[in-house]
């Protein structure tokens, strides 16, 4: 049986990707960010997942305003890095796990989550930056990745509760997959940030830290946060923290917090990161 053993959340700030791609990771500004992921990379090497499910959002790369799926599951064999205006990021092509992805689609749709199935998709910094943070910059990503793109660009995104419940449905799907696979699920985006309008630059460390606490120990509180509260307290684009709740819903109610990191800023954004393991893992 396949099993979700742990969840990882991390911001996916594009400037972090640019710092990696342009060799700036040793600069003091960026050292402050990257040093927070050293322990995480060691943890990841120890866990050695067979598959990662990465919950992220596309930033007008794969999806324009022509089609806006709320939840889109990547079922393809591979996902090339998107050209976000400066040429594609020089990172490996993301290899999918079409068999497990198809199984998840089949299972969660019958579980009443009306996913969009995507068989051709490019992936942008939203997906590849967290892979870099957790795996470094290898020649090939060490395991297959199933992307789950969540709309957080066009308001309203799915509610935190809906995201959490989808996470639980994904867990049921994974656990009904016959092959023994160790799965880690990522929630990405956040934390507080606003990059649009005259209020850009908003950061709310207090909100972010309370969110991390709730995520670890009181998920029912975290999933009850309304969109307007995210936007008012954590910035218009801070609402993307709902994606972390997909990760949380896929774990046990009680989890062990393995690691946490928080720093301000990376470009316009508060960087938050947490690793949670199922107690029995």
């Amino acid at each position, binding site marked *: 049986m396949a099993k979700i053993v742990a969840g990882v959340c991390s911001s996916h700030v594009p400037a972090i990707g640019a710092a990696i791609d342009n060799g700036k990771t040793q600069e003091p500004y960026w050292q402050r960010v990257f040093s927070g992921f050293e322990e995480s990379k060691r943890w990841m090497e120890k866990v050695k997942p067979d598959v990662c499910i990465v919950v992220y959002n596309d930033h*007008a790369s794969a999806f324009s305003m022509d089609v806006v799926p709320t939840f889109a599951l990547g079922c393809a064999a591979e996902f090339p890095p998107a050209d976000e205006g400066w040429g594609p990021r020089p990172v490996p092509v993301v290899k999918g796990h079409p068999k497990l992805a198809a199984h998840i689609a089949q299972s969660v749709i019958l579980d009443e989550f009306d996913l969009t199935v995507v068989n051709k998709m490019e992936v942008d910094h939203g997906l590849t930056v967290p892979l870099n943070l957790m795996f470094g910059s290898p020649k090939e990503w060490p395991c297959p990745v199933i992307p789950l793109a969540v709309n957080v660009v066009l308001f309203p995104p799915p509610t935190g509760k809906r995201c959490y419940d989808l996470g639980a449905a994904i867990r049921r799907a994974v656990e009904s997959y016959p092959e023994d696979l160790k799965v880690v699920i990522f929630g990405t985006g956040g934390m507080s940030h606003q990059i649009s309008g005259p209020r850009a630059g908003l950061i709310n460390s207090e909100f972010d830290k309370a969110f991390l606490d709730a995520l670890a120990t009181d998920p029912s509180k975290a999933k009850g946060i309304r969109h307007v509260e995210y936007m008012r*307290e954590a910035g218009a684009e801070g609402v993307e923290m709902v994606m972390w709740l997909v990760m949380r819903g896929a774990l046990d109610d009680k989890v062990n917090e393995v690691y946490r990191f928080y720093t301000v800023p990376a470009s316009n954004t508060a960087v938050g990161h947490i690793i949670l393991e199922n107690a029995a893992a």
Partner: protein
Amino acid sequence: MDDAKKEYDDIPGTFVFDQERSRQGYGINAFCMTLMKDENRKAFRADESTYLDQFGLTPEQKDSILKRQWNRILELGGNIYFTAKLGATDGLSFQQMAAMMTGSTQEGYASMMLNGGRSPNGNRSKSEWSSK
């Protein structure tokens, strides 16, 4: 949901990209998507006004793009992840665009961020801005 809409309209300095804005701004965002291709960026730079005529923009929308009124573009239905492609075409980073939208200098904005960013205090409600 109507109540929620009223609530987020009270957030100051923020244009929530909701279904209504998306409807109004479809042409703006469709234009921005074309800037992902270098040949289109070249064609746009060569004659911005003619290039923009392909997208069914209102005169206000077209004017705001030509003048790079970044906030006005958002107000008229542009979304930041799309307008960032126009910014990139102009050689601007996300942080440079953010600085421009806040009316700050690049240095002033970068230093605000290094000092922990803009506090939510005093920035939660339009009533707090109108007294400034």
